[in-house]
């Protein structure tokens, strides 16, 4: 196996680089989930529908995101009427 093949198959040669990519991805994933849940709420989706697509319970998605979204949109309760475009 030449140098190039090994790099491609095993990922980055430096384990640190590979592990740090995991950390970066985890942090980005958290932010992406938060953004897409917020986008869905703004588009008028219910918590139940969001939870179904994410494959988690309604309680879990609500507990994780409701407060943040409420604070970002004061006076407009998420997942109720009045949302949607």
């Amino acid at each position: 196996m030449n140098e190039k093949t090994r790099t491609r198959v095993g990922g980055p040669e430096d384990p640190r680089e590979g592990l740090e990519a995991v950390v970066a991805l985890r942090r980005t994933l958290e932010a992406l989930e938060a953004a897409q849940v917020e986008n869905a709420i703004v588009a008028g989706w219910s918590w139940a529908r969001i939870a179904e697509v994410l494959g988690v319970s309604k309680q879990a998605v609500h507990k994780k995101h409701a407060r943040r979204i409420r604070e970002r949109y004061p006076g407009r309760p998420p997942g109720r009427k009045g949302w949607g475009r």
Partner: protein
Amino acid sequence: MFTRFTDRSRTSVEAAFDEARMLGHDSLGDEDLLLGILRADEGIAAEALSSLGVTLEDAREESEEMLSDALSSIGISLEGVRTEAGEAFDMRIPDNRRIPYSPMAKKTLVGARKEMRRLGDNSLGTEHVLLGILGNADGMAVRMLARMGIAPETLKERLFEVCGRAAG
């Protein structure tokens, strides 16, 4: 944890938590301790850093660039993700989520305490925190500084110049 910390170094650690949350760090890293020192913008360590041209803005940008580079290494474009998610995309850690010290940050503060004792000082200032940071050659902070063109030895020497005592 904060025994013998000066007001300044305590403030810098509090600022570090703020910086960490803002950058989406789910634990306080040693690079955040560096950002905290710059943010508190007082004391010997901040003076040494700014005299070498290291600013809070540059350090924040470098930290984001390191995240972006790490994602690129596995074929993900942070810009692409940002564009796809739209305006709602925000790396910031929500206010209701507490973040812990990372093992590296703890190691840094333990190192800072050792530096304080080694130098025969009675209180733990930002200069000891910075020496603790520089003691972790594997840490994010040292690599971040290297990317900004600052070698640990150069910064250490500058720190002792600012302190007005011989490097040791």
